[in-house]
């Protein structure tokens, strides 16, 4: 019954939208919001009529993998802001590589170094992406 939770979330959002915006620019979002709300109700209804939905096999949770992917992107943003492209690249690849249980420290390290090389050659040198390699402050 996870569906219900998400639908409730979507519905709440759509209602807020509908009342908060003025009639002019808010008219179209209001309509769309109504459609979402209706679809949400329909999904709940369908979920009710489907007794085996809840018992269906759910794949195992992969908290480590999920956390590492999310963290790697956060690391990229933070380090990209304060340290530059190279540290950001290294951190992003290294952290996300650790998310996979079959990766060892060594292989993650090697992979991150390889990607750093790609970052410098392809993006910084060939494509001239506007992103300093290091930031000193």
């Amino acid at each position, binding site marked *: 019954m996870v569906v219900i939770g998400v639908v409730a979330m979507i519905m709440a959002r759509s209602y807020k939208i509908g009342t908060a915006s003025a009639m002019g620019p808010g008219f179209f979002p209001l309509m*769309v*919001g109504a459609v979402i709300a209706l*679809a949400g109700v329909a999904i709940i209804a*369908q979920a009710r009529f489907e007794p085996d939905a809840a018992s269906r096999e759910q794949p195992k949770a992969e908290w480590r993998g999920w956390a590492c992917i999310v963290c790697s992107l956060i690391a990229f943003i933070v380090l990209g802001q304060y340290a530059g492209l190279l540290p950001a690249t290294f951190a992003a690849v290294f952290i996300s590589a650790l998310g*996979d249980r*079959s990766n060892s420290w060594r292989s993650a390290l090697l992979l991150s170094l390889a*990607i750093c090389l790609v*970052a410098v050659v392809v993006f910084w040198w060939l494509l001239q*992406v506007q992103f300093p390699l290091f930031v000193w402050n």
Partner: protein
Amino acid sequence: MLAQTLRDLSYGFGIALQPENLVWSFFGVLVGNLIGVLPGMGAISTISILLPLTYSMHPVAAVLMLAGIFYGSQYGGAIGAILLNMPSHPPHAVTCIDGYPMAQQGRGGAALGVTMIASFFAASFGICVMIFASPLLVKVAFEFGPAEIFSIMLLGLVAGATMSRGSPTKGVAMTALGLLIGTAGTDVNTGMARFTFGFTELTDKVELVALAMGLFGVGEFIRGVNRIKSIGPTAQLRLRDMRPTREELRRSLLPILRGTLIGTAFGAIPGTGPTITTFIAYAVERKVSKTPERFGYGAIEGVAGPEASAHSKTQVDFVPTMSLGIPGDAVMALILGALLIQGIQPGPQLISEHADIFWGLVASFWIGNLLLMVLNVPLIGIWVKLLRVPYRLLFPSAIFFIAIGVYSTNNSLFEVGEALVFGIAGAILLALEFPISPILLGYVLGPLVEENFRRTLVLSHGDFMIFLQRPISAAFVTASLLLVLLQVFFAARGLSVGRVKSEVTA
């Protein structure tokens, strides 16, 4: 008329064969193929990852390269589906059913060869349709007012929502979600900022690349981490094996023809995804086959028909995308977005105003498909090796490419954050079995739909009946309604059947 078309076409070949454009087209096919082969990377993820590369390019070269990436990755996906039983792009799910058993029987090479022939034939047919249908459609399209455009888009959205795989209600919800995301940013008519949640960066609209990469890149990786294990293909594959036997060719000839026609018919309906097309093509092959029991155990017809339909469908899909500015599916939506980024407004005026893009693209389809054939014959061995790249090394590298790709769009780290948010949202939606491609379709069409909707109501002084008073518009609205009613009918029937069943078992 014919002479004019031929003249335009040769003009297009002149453009597509310019060394610079040719090189980019070649590059696109090669890279698209390369990335499409990698496990877990479909056409959409490939295009969204490579989209930023095209920003600094000339529009013609950019579009040619994107188209090249597109069919390169589509073909690459077929390789993974046949040899590994792993569909990286949903339409290839059907190809797995018979392609993988063929690979297990050592005929994987032949399956790939037939796929190549089928796709080339189907694409060529689709290109011909595109050449002749687009100018005709444009003539009609010039008569269209905002009411007609709105109705067509409505049909496209409804079709995209209800005919995607999985539950139609979920499809509708996702399309509407996409529309909603599309409205974020500064309102064109009043200048009012909507849904920015206080971020000034969001007044500039949600970035297309961030959305696509978040949903299809980050989202897929979050789902796939520690789950996708790459197993090397069972059989070695040599060039010699690529050649299908005469018997196999004979058996796939008619399925290719039927698949092509099915794909063309579906391509003409905006919003119908390629997945549904391939599934129908497969079902048809099974129906007409004298030996339906062979399907699922390596019947070459089950590979040829669906692959042909997928390629002719995508080719014909370019017709509404280029001449009306209405994308048929998520991939077309991305290409449309790329055009918009280049400052080109797709629509009826595109063919006359940007003749170089349109005819160059048409010509490049042929060149690109030829390149694909030429490339894949010697490179198939390398692709097979690439299939062995373990997922554990693949996705961290891809995470980096996503991060830098999104960043380079506008040199903004904020957009990397956007991609992260959409990635998490996408992973949750995927886990709940919501289809995510309609979001992208809704997002790209959102602003156009809203603008035309409001313009129509301004013209009619707020009278909704205008959509029914204009005949063309009325036809499209009726068609959309029919689609919805059909779905409701099927759903209701399915429910009552289900209830009867559960009562019987209880």
